[in-house]
């Protein structure tokens, strides 16, 4: 940025050095050769030097920022449109040389250090950079008035999921981008339904609005990439009349590093990472992709998890194989698993004490996914609580044995499932009347461990019915790249 040729002096009233040299500043203002080209910028006190015609208030700190001031007073000379000299604080010889007045300041000490400029107050630099600097962002800048409430502006512009969003200012976006090593221009993918290209920058903007911290960015980027895998079928999921939305399950050391919750109330409120990562994903679908409820999102009822649904798996029990490993990733990998799911169906059993009793009991609940008489139509994710898992663990049952037992326990005679059976119109094709029919496809039951240490309560997530067409809609697991 260029300034007029002449002398530019930045001061603040709350600086003993600035007030010390005030008489000399007044002499400069009256000086026939200096005065006409003198520009004084006052950072704080409105009354300070306000009687001088050369005085300008710089309460916004715009001029101080553009002059790159760190200490006040600072005196700068501009010639031919360029800065040619600068003196920081009060150094009498420097001022004399800069001004070309050999007797200037003869009644003042030779040297006095200045004070910190308001531009270097903690937090000020990022704010000023975003307001007056040249940020490398490419998204459209939207100017709103100083008196406008940016949160209300976000509502009015349709950027919100119904809850207040954090205003996406340049400072916040730049801070969010520190959470990833990826270039802000990198395209993560095309977001349905409009198939709009989504850059890392757009991810960061929506992450800001959701309330994410920068360290969540790798998880969010991996989750978005997983959701954009064709087999996840995000387009169908976001426009369906069903209840479902993208559910994010996070595995690996990163869950601890970013403070995720896999324990008490793991599927509920109260944890920032759990609450905002899923929300950011849904804001991206809405804002970048155009997936807006009531427009292309045609959910009959939806579910509260569509605000955002994300949790971590409990990997603290070494006897349990985490979901990431079951999906083929190495132990200790950081992964996200995207599950196209409905809300939580609660399962309570406080009487079963043996693995087989619990299996039989869980099978009854799993049979209810979508509809008790519908089979091979949905995936299910069983979220085993620690107390329920301990019944299996104490008898030496591992993931594969539990899964196998549940698949077997959910086999049903076709005669009980066909349309019309038991006086219910819904059901499977009557041609299967004599078969033993599995509830799920062979890979249709996923199990994770999560939840508080007390309570014989587990949870079941039913998938979107798009999964009824085998291999057209599946959960997707992806490694998180740090």
């Amino acid at each position, binding site marked *: 940025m260029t300034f007029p040729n002449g002398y530019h002096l930045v001061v603040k009233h709350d600086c003993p050095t600035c007030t010390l040299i005030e008489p000399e500043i007044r002499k400069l203002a009256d000086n026939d050769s200096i005065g006409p080209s003198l520009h004084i910028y006052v950072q704080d006190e409105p009354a300070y030097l306000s009687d001088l015609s050369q005085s300008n208030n710089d309460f*916004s700190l715009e001029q101080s920022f553009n002059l790159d001031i760190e200490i006040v007073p600072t005196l700068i000379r501009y010639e031919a449109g360029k800065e040619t000299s600068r003196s920081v604080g009060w150094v009498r010889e420097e001022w004399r040389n800069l001004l070309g007045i050999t007797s200037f300041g003869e009644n003042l000490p030779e040297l006095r250090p200045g004070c910190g400029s308001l531009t270097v107050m903690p937090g000020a630099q990022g704010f000023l950079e*975003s*307001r007056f600097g040249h940020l490398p*962002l490419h*998204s*459209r*800048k*939207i*100017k*709103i*008035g*100083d008196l*406008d409430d*940016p949160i209300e*502006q*976000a509502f009015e512009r349709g*950027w919100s999921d119904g809850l207040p969003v954090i*205003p*996406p*200012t*340049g400072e916040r*976006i730049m801070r969010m981008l520190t959470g990833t090593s990826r270039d802000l221009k990198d395209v993560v993918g095309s*977001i*349905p*339904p*409009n198939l*709009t*290209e*989504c850059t890392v920058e*757009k991810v960061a*903007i*929506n992450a800001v*609005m959701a309330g994410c911290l920068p360290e969540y960015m790798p998880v969010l980027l991996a989750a978005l990439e997983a959701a954009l895998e*064709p087999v996840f*079928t995000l*387009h*169908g999921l976001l426009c369906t009349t069903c209840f479902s939305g993208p559910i994010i399950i996070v595995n690996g050391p990163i869950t601890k590093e970013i403070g995720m919750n896999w324990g008490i109330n793991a599927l509920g409120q109260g944890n920032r990472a759990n609450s905002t990562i899923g929300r950011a994903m849904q*804001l991206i679908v809405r*804002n*970048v*992709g*155009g997936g807006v409820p009531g427009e292309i999102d045609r959910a009959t009822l939806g579910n509260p998890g569509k605000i955002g649904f994300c949790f971590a798996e409990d990997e603290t029990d070494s006897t349990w194989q985490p979901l990431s490993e079951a999906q083929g990733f190495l132990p200790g990998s950081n992964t996200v698993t995207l599950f196209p799911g409905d809300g939580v169906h609660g399962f309570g059993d406080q009487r079963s004490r043996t693995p087989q009793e619990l299996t039989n009991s869980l099978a009854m609940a799993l049979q209810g996914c979508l509809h008790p008489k519908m089979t091979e139509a949905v995936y299910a994710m069983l979220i085993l609580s620690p107390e329920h898992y301990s019944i299996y663990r104490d008898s030496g049952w591992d993931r594969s044995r539990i899964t196998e037992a549940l698949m077997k326990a959910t086999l049903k005679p076709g005669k009980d499932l066909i349309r019309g059976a038991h006086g219910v119109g819904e059901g499977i094709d009557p041609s299967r009347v004599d078969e033993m029919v599995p509830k799920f496809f062979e890979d249709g039951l996923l199990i994770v461990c999560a939840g508080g240490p007390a309570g014989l309560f587990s949870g079941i997530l039913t998938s979107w019915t*798009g999964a009824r*067409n085998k291999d*057209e*809609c599946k959960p997707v697991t992806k490694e998180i790249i740090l």
Partner: protein
Amino acid sequence: MSQILYDPTGETESTMRTRRWPPDDLTGKTVMLFDIGKARSREFLNYLDDILKAKGLTTARAAKPTNAKTAPKEVIDYMVKEADVVIEALSD
């Protein structure tokens, strides 16, 4: 002085196009029956097909491979090339 926010949207703009007016008469036109891939779409379209043919109209068929995904470009191109009007059918 103003505050600056950065646009979180895809920054796309809709293109407004004039809707093609439906023909007054279907005689000599091809009616494309487009199956979106729902469970009973075909059954419903078969019913319509019979009615249209009974009226002496020409029909053709196109289908999405699955209702869960958008129609492939080749299916859309085929309908644009072959059809004068399209009936897009949901079943349930």
